[in-house]
């Protein structure tokens, strides 16, 4: 994103202050770069959006198979059954019985897609029980490697919903 100084502004709107905008943008990008270099893994992508300012920093997350004899990291909820066949993955499991939805509402984009990085505490889905929408959050950070539960499917307590490739780099 760059500040546009060539197009004349519409008469009713006061002209922007190019210097100030550029300064703010430089500062934001600088901060984002510092944030990006703070991770131990190679930087993958920085996205800076304005309007409601958002900075999205992504690091590469090379798959690291667990060492021989090492237990795969446990999910926030015990998920011993669901772990089978997803070695090394951390499962986000259903915190209650109900209906699993991947998006906030029909037609809305899903909370997460395969390949997305999620932070600990980030909402990754919804479980509806008794007409109440309950947020499902990832308890650990990781990259979404598989969406296990179907959108709109009934799930039981501790059913696996999605798998995360663990990411210990940040």
């Amino acid at each position: 994103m760059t500040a546009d100084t060539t197009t004349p502004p519409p008469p009713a709107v006061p002209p922007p202050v190019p210097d100030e905008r550029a300064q703010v943008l430089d500062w934001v990008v600088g901060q984002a770069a510092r944030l990006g270099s703070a991770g131990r893994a190679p930087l993958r992508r920085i996205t800076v959006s304005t309007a409601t300012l958002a900075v999205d920093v992504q690091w590469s997350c090379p798959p690291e198979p667990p060492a021989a004899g090492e237990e795969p990291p446990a999910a926030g909820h015990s998920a011993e059954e669901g772990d089978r066949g997803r070695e090394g993955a951390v499962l986000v499991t259903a915190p209650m019985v109900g209906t699993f939805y991947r998006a906030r509402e029909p037609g809305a984009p899903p909370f997460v897609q395969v390949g997305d990085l999620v932070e600990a505490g980030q909402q990754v889905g919804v479980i509806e029980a008794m007409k109440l929408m309950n947020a499902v959050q990832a308890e650990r950070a990781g990259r979404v490697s598989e969406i296990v539960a179907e959108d709109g499917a009934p799930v039981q307590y501790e059913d696996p919903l999605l798998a995360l490739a663990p990411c210990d780099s940040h």
Partner: protein
Amino acid sequence: MFTTVLIANRGEIALRVLRTCREMGVRTVVAHSTVDRDSPAVRLADESIQIGPAAPRRSYLNAAALIAAARQSGAEAIHPGYGFLSESAEFAEICQAHGITLIGPAPAVIARLGDKVSAREFAAEAGLPLLPGGDGPAAGVGEAARTAAAVGYPVVLKAAAGGGGRAMTVVHDPGDLARAYAATRREAVVLFGDARVYVEKYLDAARHVEVQILADAHGQVLHLGARDCSVQRRRQKLIEETPPPGLPAAAVERLGELSVRAAHAAGYTGAGTFEYVVDEHGACYFIEVNCRLQVEHPITEMVTGIDLVREQLLVAAGGRLSLRQEEVAAGGAAIECRLNAEDPARGFLPTPGVVEEFVPPGGPFTRVDTHAVAGTRITADYDPLLAKVSVWAPTRAEALARADRALEECTIRGQGVRTNVAFLREVLAHPLFRYAKHTTALVEQMRATPIT
């Protein structure tokens, strides 16, 4: 009849309900917690749904989880068993709002009879004999003291929303009243979220007698006789029998008729129990109504030949009871002993652990309701009931001998697990019990003066 019933309970009662459903061709779905996933009820069910972790608040007491499970499985009805949500008017309302039948009385009936104060008011209107006590919850310690003085000590302070012997304090001395009142209120708030406490006369030496009723929505109410449940520890029952020994048949019949009339007046439907205490002069006083199937229902089934769960299902589905009062024919005597994982030598403290060996009794007219098998884990999350051993015989004396024989056969062993089997046999052999001269004070008397 329902196509599918969700069983919202665990242990032996989940199995008990499941078995009748299966006999009636009703599909069963068992809702279970994580620790019960390998239980016999889950294994035998047509479908099972894991509703939450071991803590009851997040599984068997979680209304949202149970409703979600019922909807997922297509169950039209929920059988709540006993305990947990079986007498929750709020849960009954939630079920109703979701178009699911809760097998039990209507929410308004549960609300009225489940609250001890409104149940007392209702009983007074229905003409049931009441123990002297306050007209309603005590407005404060002063009013509690005035009521206690008027009815005479000892008195019992009871939480209005209480049950299961909890938040109840017996006060023998006026000097102890203020402290007991404050403590009971605190306990009532913690356990039931309701501070209301009321005062009632306490009978030191009484028999606990209860009447089993059945009612349908077509105006038919009948009673199936009475049970004596006087053998209790910490106000929880250990041994129950029917008919109540030493209580004249005419008195049992009168209690039955009173209960039927009251149930009719309350608009009761399903299976229920009217509980009474009987003093040394034979006077009977109403204490409460249990709006559910009870733990001790097998002995009524044994003497009447009536499957109470079957009747519950028929009534809940809008049908009629399968028989009329004049068709109820109770015969012989039945005794139920509750085998608990608990240590009588340490105040009946529950003993969690793993049952490594379990050999239940068998033999003629001997029924064992249990979920225990070798490998069953007794956790501190649930009550310590391991098995109910019920026997039937033509006479009480024969039933006593049969109950003792059955208990003797029973082997339950496991690391850390203690049972009350030996203690139950002591009770069966105790002269006061054998001659039906016992009261609810029997267990305390035995502990105070053990027979050697």
